[in-house]
């Protein structure tokens, strides 16, 4: 099913007699849910854009590429740097903005500008009974009622099908530069990222792969030059500088996890403490791309190592199997959390038709 309006979407959900596989363009769907496909790609287009207020309201099925194009026209962007995971997951299709929100998909700039959920100001969605619900709005500060926007962001369609999202957007910076640090081992190279993030120099990217640590600053040209000089003195190693488009290219590689594309094996996405990041990878011995100063690890491993991964991250984060064969995909929940999750699903989707078996 591919409804073209919110009304049609609500009717489709109300009429559904069995499980629905809810998705945007299906480019980042995870897990083992099965059901009749319900795509939101037909709900497309910008509903409101006020560059002077940094607000954008779009229908959930709008392609990410179109959102980017519209924002670029006013020299603005989504602050959270939407990852394109098609290459990593081996998917085709058109990534939609609703899918991005449903996955809370956030790129390298999360360390400075926040996650996707932090940029979401409001949502409209259809719950499991086919009722349209709105929450939040289009203003930057809003504490009116409970924040279902955060609850829906990252819910992967299990509580409702997003029909519309409003965002806080960001102006494009005048300049960007990346310090490329070589000659350091993983432990020291990750330590350099923590030094940079603990400095007052407003680092907007801190990643490591292929033996190189990357530290990004963005902003007005004079300020970028100043901060680059300050950081260069503090991080150690052999530093070269990438500016403008060369810098941007480095961060697309990180954002889309390009170093792991096309390589056989399973890919884990591990959220952890930056100080634990080197140790976890050393213990599991796989190829890693570290983002968020080490707080996020994309790790390539042989098949069937789920138990070892779980043991390695226990008590210091969690791991999701984003590309693999069988086994649980999402991290297990403590019983008292699982009870709340089950309760919310039963309330928002009483028939249990949205992506059954996906999460929790």
């Amino acid at each position, binding site marked *: 099913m591919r409804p073209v309006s919110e009304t049609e979407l609500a009717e489709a959900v109300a009429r559904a007699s069995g499980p629905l596989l809810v998705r945007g363009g299906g480019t980042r769907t995870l897990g083992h849910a099965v059901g009749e496909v319900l795509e939101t790609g037909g709900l497309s287009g910008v509903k409101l854009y006020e560059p002077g207020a940094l607000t954008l309201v779009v229908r959930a099925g709008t392609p990410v590429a179109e959102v980017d194009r519209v924002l670029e026209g*006013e020299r603005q962007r989504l602050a959270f740097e939407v990852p394109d995971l098609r290459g990593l997951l081996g998917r085709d299709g058109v990534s939609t903005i609703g899918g991005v929100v449903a996955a809370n998909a956030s790129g390298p700039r999360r360390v400075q500008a*926040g996650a996707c959920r932090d940029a979401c100001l409001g949502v409209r969605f259809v719950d499991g009974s086919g009722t349209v619900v709105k929450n939040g709005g289009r203003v930057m500060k809003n504490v009116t009622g*409970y*924040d279902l926007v955060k609850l829906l962001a990252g819910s992967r369609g299990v*509580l409702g099908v997003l029909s519309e999202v409003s965002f806080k957007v960001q102006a494009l910076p005048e300049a960007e530069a990346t310090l490329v640090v070589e000659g350091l081992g993983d432990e020291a190279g990750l330590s350099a990222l923590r030094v940079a993030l603990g400095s007052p120099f407003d680092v907007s990217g801190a990643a490591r792969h292929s033996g190189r640590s990357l530290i990004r600053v963005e902003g007005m040209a004079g300020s970028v030059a100043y901060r680059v000089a300050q950081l260069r003195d503090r991080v150690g190693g052999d530093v070269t500088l990438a500016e403008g488009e060369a810098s941007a290219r480095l961060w697309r590689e990180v954002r889309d996890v390009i170093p792991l594309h096309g390589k056989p094996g399973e890919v884990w996405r591990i959220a952890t403490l930056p100080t634990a990041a080197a140790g976890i990878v050393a213990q599991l011995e796989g190829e890693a791309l570290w983002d968020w100063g080490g707080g996020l690890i994309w790790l390539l491993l042989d098949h069937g190592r789920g138990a070892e991964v779980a043991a390695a991250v226990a008590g210091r984060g969690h791991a999701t199997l984003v590309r693999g064969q069988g086994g649980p995909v999402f991290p297990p929940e403590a019983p008292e959390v699982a009870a709340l999750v089950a309760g919310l699903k039963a309330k928002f989707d009483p028939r249990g038709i949205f992506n059954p078996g996906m999460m929790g």
Partner: protein
Amino acid sequence: MDMPAPDQGVIVRKARIVERLRAVLSADGVIDAPEELRAYECDALTAYRCPPLAAVLPRSTGEVSAVLRVCWEEGVPVVPRGSGTSLAGGAMPTADSVILGVARMNAVLETDYENRFIRVQSGRTNLSVSGAVEAEGFFYAPDPSSQLACAIAGNIAMNSGGAHCLKYGVTTNNLLGVTLVRMDGTVVTLGGPWGEPAGLDLLGVVCGSEGQLGVVTEAWLRILPKPEGARPVLVGFDSNEVAGACVSDIIKAGILPVAIEFMDRPCIRATEAFAKAGYPDCEALLIIEVEGSAAEIAEQLARIKQIALAHDPVEFREAADEDQARRIWLGRKSAFGAMGQINDYMCLDGTIPVSSLPHVLKRIGEMSREFGLDVGNVFHAGDGNMHPLILFNANKPGDLERCEAFGAEILKLCVEVGGCLTGEHGVGIEKRDLMSVQFAPEDMEAQMRVKDVFDPKWLLNPAKVFPLGVSAERRAG
């Protein structure tokens, strides 16, 4: 303000309930003497008062859990309280409720500079969180005006903002995880110092739920390295429209000031008379603050000046040193006190799209004449969060009611232009009955379902957030 009739079945069991609470807390942790309970009869919304049945002051998550379990078994409503600074009546008791104050839980449990977080007990005050990490060059970003007194517990309950949230976000953007105790005493950990949710973002819905889903006893908070310096400029304009257009142009230009504050003429005049900050006599003024090294500040201010001058301001005042910077902020920081010198006031908190600013200010001026009450506007202009201050005389019969009616009209206007009832103070009891202006029944139904899951008996922080009629069936159990 309507409040539900207290449960007499609870009130007659007071002695037994207090005895059970004393059994799980240290002797000085339970307050039941009527004269001592007066301290808990209201929060910073002082127009409404009601002493609670009792108050408890636990010292640990374990004690909070034990207290809640007793109240759950006895069917006693519980009103969680941070420091009692809510302007919305978020910690307003009912006669049959137990106040659960977290003031004694103020310890720092862990600081981790490499991973950039602090873990605190939730009764710790906002400013003392920054105080705990200041020596290492860090700070906690959300900075509500009450930060000297307000507790992290209340900040999380209300998703508090502050003057600097334009750059750093509000509480929800700086909260990594919590220990939450549910009404039945179950202890739940949501999130953690790594920040990224593992599944559904339950932390995200707990933040801002006004103490209705559980009692937060501990929190992991993100800390940030302090910028090298900060500096404000003051720009005066002879019209609200032009000031609004200037704000919009600064934002569009990609400069990200940490604060853009707006004051209108009535507010400027009141603060001048009170604080003598030397503000220009004009229709509207902006205080814009930027951060960074000396050179970075100069670079940003040069750009701001260029944009501001294009709007033909009546004054563009830079701060040559710390003292001048302090004077620029002086009037703004005295604004509430200044208005309070003139009369009693009610502080509103609606948010509007920045583009609607001139229209909304014009309408507020018209309504001020219709209601016969003066109003001054202080405004977080960068994010559209308004703080109209309506002046009234609490001793004059009918004035409070007129003021509340005027306030309600302003908030309805905020919703009408695409904004909301409250940007950072919360709904509490104050805006509870206006929720239907912003939300359709099914929108509130979806929110109430979350409460059904976390607090099935609807005992936590009763009679807040949702209109009484809308929540009646659930509260009846």
